């Protein structure tokens, strides 16, 4: 750029010649130069501002237009998106631990009527009553003609029934599509699954809500639309459950019991592999809860969870475990079993009037199941510590499991835990608890002393519970329980290959009058862990009022009732769970007769 000189020589000379001040010319030129400079930079700034304004305008326009179009248009799913994760059913399936279906949904139709559209209400009512035996033609006709505009006729229809209703040909009868809950296995695992009912009902859909068992307890999980395509996996194994129910049912019939229950549990994780309660029901057609005097006669009653029973001698192992843990006894310590023995004025007797002589070792007290021996051990421990220990095993709390009914099954025991309570609790009387709690407590002994929380949901990760007894004590307890099976009251449970260890319990039921016990009505329990060398499973079998009639006189001790049933269950499920039989000389010999004792 050619720079304009501030003092152009020509003009300076000219001005000098005219006698003017040449400095004026310089100032003039300087001012002109500054003006030009100012104009240039203003123009540049203007250009930049306009560009910036344009940018802002363009971006605001784009955003504004997009917002406007989003606000004004109706929302639609992008139809071209892949349809892989579409929700297929409104309620999640329930499957067993290997994915076999326990509960699923099925499309069905509800039948409703709009009486204004009915051509011949009387004929429609008569025809419907002919199809559905539970309906009354007069009743239907009254509902069709009393002026209402909408009548629910039936909640679910089978395809055949739907066809028959079609054939009535009345335009006032309508079908509403809906999903219903289906339990393809019928009565199997009925008490675990519970049941469902229709909640809010619409013409084109109906809400399915759980009314009992797992369906009710897991209602939030099952009805969560985000999780409806992933099934709820239970810890239950369908095959094991079926086997346990089959054997238990056969045992119940053979032994004339009015009820039975069994629980099979993994000792490490607390996962319940099978849980049965008989008599049972069909969850597809769950009846209403009948308000009878004795709830336990109702098929809907879950004996394994809801039932709280005095479990008798199965509790003796807890007294022994605690005494050993406290260092009070060893398996070889001699315990006083002399009769008569009175506590606070009450005589403590052995079952069936037996007498075991002056002393027995702790191991023998368990093997022959001596009440007096257990009572002495209980007194050594003391009431306060005993109650604390039973609480730490979870025996005095309602069972912790994912079932609606569990919360109501509170354990029963004498409120001030006095001396007599201490003594009776040592051999399982005066304390009533749920079978599930017993299973969890035996699992604690079986897994080496860590507390077990039972669960019905399958998971790959399990946290180990707090330690309740030492590993050495737990091992010694299992060894003692193994002796019960090899030499004691439960010899029928000596299943070859599976090293069953367990403890029998025969508890007479309290009389209905509330005073004393009924000799003819017993609850027989066999609580077992197997295999004894490395316990993996706990099996609890309970029979309600069983009696063994094969021999010359009726037998009511657990050794002749619950034990053979449990043995058959173990014999059947052992191969199913893949336990390798442990071949030992003793196991191959035939079972001996049990010590005729409880």
């Amino acid at each position, binding site marked *: 750029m050619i720079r304009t000189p501030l003092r152009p020589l020509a003009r300076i000379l000219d001005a000098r010649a005219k006698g003017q001040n040449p400095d004026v010319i310089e100032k003039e030129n300087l001012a002109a130069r500054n003006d030009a400079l100012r104009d240039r930079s203003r123009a540049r700034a203007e250009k930049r501002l306009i560009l910036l304004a344009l940018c802002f305008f363009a971006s605001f326009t784009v955003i504004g237009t997009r917002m406007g179009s989003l606000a004004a248009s109706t929302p639609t799913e992008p139809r071209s998106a892949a349809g892989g994760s579409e929700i297929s059913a409104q309620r999640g399936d329930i499957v067993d631990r290997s994915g076999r*279906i326990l509960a699923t*949904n099925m499309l069905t139709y509800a039948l409703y009527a709009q009486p204004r559209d009915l051509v011949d209400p009387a004929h429609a009512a008569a025809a419907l009553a002919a199809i559905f035996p539970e309906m009354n033609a007069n009743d239907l006709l009254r509902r069709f003609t009393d002026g209402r505009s909408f009548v629910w006729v039936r909640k679910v229809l089978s395809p055949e029934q739907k066809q028959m209703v079609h054939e009535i040909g009345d335009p006032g009868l309508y079908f509403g599509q809906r999903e219903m809950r289906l339990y393809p296995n019928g009565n199997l695992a009925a008490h675990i699954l519970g049941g469902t009912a229709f909640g809010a009902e619409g013409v084109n859909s109906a809400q399915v809500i759980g009314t009992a068992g797992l369906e009710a307890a897991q209602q939030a999980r099952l009805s969560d639309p985000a999780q409806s395509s992933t099934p709820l996996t239970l810890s239950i194994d369908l095959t094991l459950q079926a086997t346990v129910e089959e054997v238990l049912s056969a045992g119940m019939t053979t032994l004339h019991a009015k009820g039975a229950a069994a629980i099979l549990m993994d000792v490490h994780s607390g996962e319940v592999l099978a849980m049965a309660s008989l008599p049972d029901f069909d969850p597809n057609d769950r009846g209403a809860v009948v308000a009878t005097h004795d709830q336990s006669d109702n098929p809907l009653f879950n004996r394994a969870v809801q039932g709280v029973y005095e479990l008798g001698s199965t509790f003796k192992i807890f007294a022994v475990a605690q005494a050993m843990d406290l260092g009070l006894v060893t398996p070889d310590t001699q315990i006083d079993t002399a009769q008569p023995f009175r506590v606070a004025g009450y005589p403590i007797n052995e079952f069936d009037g037996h007498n075991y002589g002056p002393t027995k070792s702790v191991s023998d007290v368990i093997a022959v199941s001596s009440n007096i021996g257990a009572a002495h051990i209980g007194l050594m421990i003391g009431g306060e510590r005993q109650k604390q220990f039973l609480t730490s095993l979870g025996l005095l709390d309602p069972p912790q499991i994912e079932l609606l009914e569990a919360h109501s099954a509170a354990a029963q025991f004498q409120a001030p835990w006095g001396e007599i309570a201490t003594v009776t609790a040592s051999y399982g009387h005066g304390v009533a608890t749920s079978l599930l709690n017993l299973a969890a407590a035996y699992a604690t002994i079986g897994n080496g002393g860590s507390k077990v929380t039972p669960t019905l949901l399958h998971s790959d990760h399990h946290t180990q519970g707090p330690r309740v007894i030492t590993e050495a004590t737990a091992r010694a307890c299992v060894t003692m329980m193994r002796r019960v099976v090899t030499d004691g009251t439960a010899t029928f449970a000596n299943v070859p290959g599976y090293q069953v260890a367990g403890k029998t319990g025969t508890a007479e039921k309290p009389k209905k009058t509330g005073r004393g016990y009924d000799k003819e009505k017993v609850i027989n329990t066999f609580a077992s862990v197997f295999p004894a060398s490395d316990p993996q499973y706990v099996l609890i079998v309970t029979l309600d009022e069983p009696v063994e009639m094969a021999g010359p006189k009726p037998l009511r001790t657990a050794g002749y009732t619950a034990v053979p049933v449990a043995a058959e269950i173990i014999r059947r499920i052992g*191969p199913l769970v893949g336990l390798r039989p442990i071949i030992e000389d003793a196991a191959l010999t035939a079972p001996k007769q049990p010590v005729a004792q409880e």
Partner: protein
Amino acid sequence: MRALLSTLSFIAVMALAFWAYRENYATQTQLKEMAKVQDQIAALRDEIAMQKAEWAYLNRPTRLRDLAAMNFDRLGLMPMAPLQLASVADVAQPVAQSLMMAGTDQSDGVLAPLLVGSEGAQIP
């Protein structure tokens, strides 16, 4: 030159317009197709759920047990027993072959203890 350029660009615009028109309709057809397929998928999924329920119903343990009992003559199915399980070491080895090989250059006296150990193996 200018005429040629504008002619060319006019042709290009027309071609693009034609292409856009066709693409628009092709897309709409595809979307309709997709909607139809998705309806089919939904229907099939319902059917699969139904089939699964039916499969579970037909395979319910009580039914299988009854079928096994009904066909006992032909199948002879029994519940598994503990002693049916064994380790590989318990499986009897084919003794006969090793006997023939051993028998060629060894006396019967040496063979005898070998035979006692395996159940049911007899020297012919």
